[in-house]
């Protein structure tokens, strides 16, 4: 199933709830980049970009873009008070030193151990690893947002990833168009189900064992 616009926004809205005041956050491209639209006004979050910005603000109005002020995907941004510019080696120093509180990344597959594959499909698409490997391996909390199943209807949450890994045992939370799943030491824990899906749908669309949280919530 393809993730349509409304669904992308629902996923982003749910992911936004994971961000707290005072955090340092790096957002991947795609769905993660929609998250700032769903944050409460006045929340102090320093958004980091691996090309060399700490303290990104909202997207500029049309016509106000600055070609020298862009995020890691090459799209124009603004900055907030207290922001800084630096070179990309410094940007990755912050990442590898473990100073980023949360990163939200896209995913192709996540395993029940929290292994993440999100950078290549051998023989098909080899975009390159970019900065995802370091973000996944070194960030305090890694949230993966993605469609629950692939375009061919195959589960993307699996016992073992079949695609080349970005990093092992790095994912803490998975947010999809059908569910919110925590990666725990005891395995995957289904904590929320998104309407119109029910628990049976989610279990059927997941390629790994799911424990159902006693406090399971339904998101309308």
């Amino acid at each position, binding site marked *: 199933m393809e993730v349509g616009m409304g669904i992308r926004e629902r996923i982003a809205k749910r992911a936004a709830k994971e961000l707290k005041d005072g955090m340092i956050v790096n957002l991947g491209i795609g769905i993660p980049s929609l998250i700032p639209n769903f944050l409460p006004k006045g929340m102090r979050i320093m958004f980091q*970009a*691996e*090309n*060399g*910005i700490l303290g990104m603000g909202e997207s500029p109005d049309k016509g106000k*873009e*600055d*070609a*020298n*002020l*862009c*995020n*890691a*995907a*090459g*799209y*124009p941004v603004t900055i907030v008070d207290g922001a800084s*510019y*630096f*070179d*990309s*080696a410094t*940007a*990755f*120093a912050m*990442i*590898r030193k473990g100073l980023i509180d949360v990163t939200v990344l896209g995913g192709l597959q996540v395993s029940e151990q929290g292994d993440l594959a999100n950078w290549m499909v051998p023989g098909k*698409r*080899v*975009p*390159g*690893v*970019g*900065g995802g*490997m*370091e973000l996944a*391996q070194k960030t305090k909390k890694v949230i993966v947002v993605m469609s629950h199943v692939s375009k061919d209807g195959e589960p993307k949450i699996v016992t073992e990833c079949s695609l*080349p*890994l970005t990093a*092992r045992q790095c994912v803490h939370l998975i947010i999809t168009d059908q569910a919110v799943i925590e990666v725990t030491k005891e395995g995957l824990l289904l904590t929320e189900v998104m309407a119109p899906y029910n628990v049976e749908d989610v279990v059927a669309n997941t390629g790994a064992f799911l424990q159902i949280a006693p406090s399971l919530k339904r998101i309308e």
Partner: protein
Amino acid sequence: MMVAGNEYGKIVSIEYAIDKVMDGCTLMVGGFGGVGSPPTLLQEVFDKGVEQLTLICNDTAFPHIGVGPLVKEGRVKKAIVSHIGSNPIAGSLFQEGKMEVEFSPQGILIERIRAGGAGLGGILVDIGMDHEWLSKGKPIVEVDGKRFLLERPLTADVSLVYAKKADPFGNLVYGKSARNTNPLVAMAGNITIAEVEEIVPLGELNPEEIVTPGIFVHYIVKSRGVNWKWAWE
């Protein structure tokens, strides 16, 4: 207003500077998704028809932006990059075996460039250790019980960078996020050519604010400005 002199002979014509970029050379280019890549120098390298390049850059940009056109026209024999996803033509050339690509994780690529520019023999990293491609042929080094991959430094025959301001010694100040890989790329070139928006007289840049000391910069050329349409336009 004072006019910048040329006390160090580093301010040259674009044609003179580009003469250093030869067929088959290793060319390192600053920029990240094309932002902060030197538009005028890249256009001149393209127009000169240079071929068989080994290109070292953060990424292959977009087909019409930054290093993208060089890749698109098959001028690059080998690319050492972190990402080719924004340039579908790079992906096709790679898949068809027409362009070799050596991937490094982004932060490792830039540290390899920094190591090259800083005269180091390599760096020890714990990224990509158990990845078949990324660890292939790289020695494992154990330090205090921890295992690391040895990643080799990168240098280039010629480095092309883009800055906001230069003085005649080649001291550079960058513009916002267009700084990105440029300060590291500037250090790693055997010859470094800086394309700048503005050349100011000696003494006008505040020494506290200089990001790249001029010792790393061999030639300075004045930019004609960006000649591509941005991906977001």
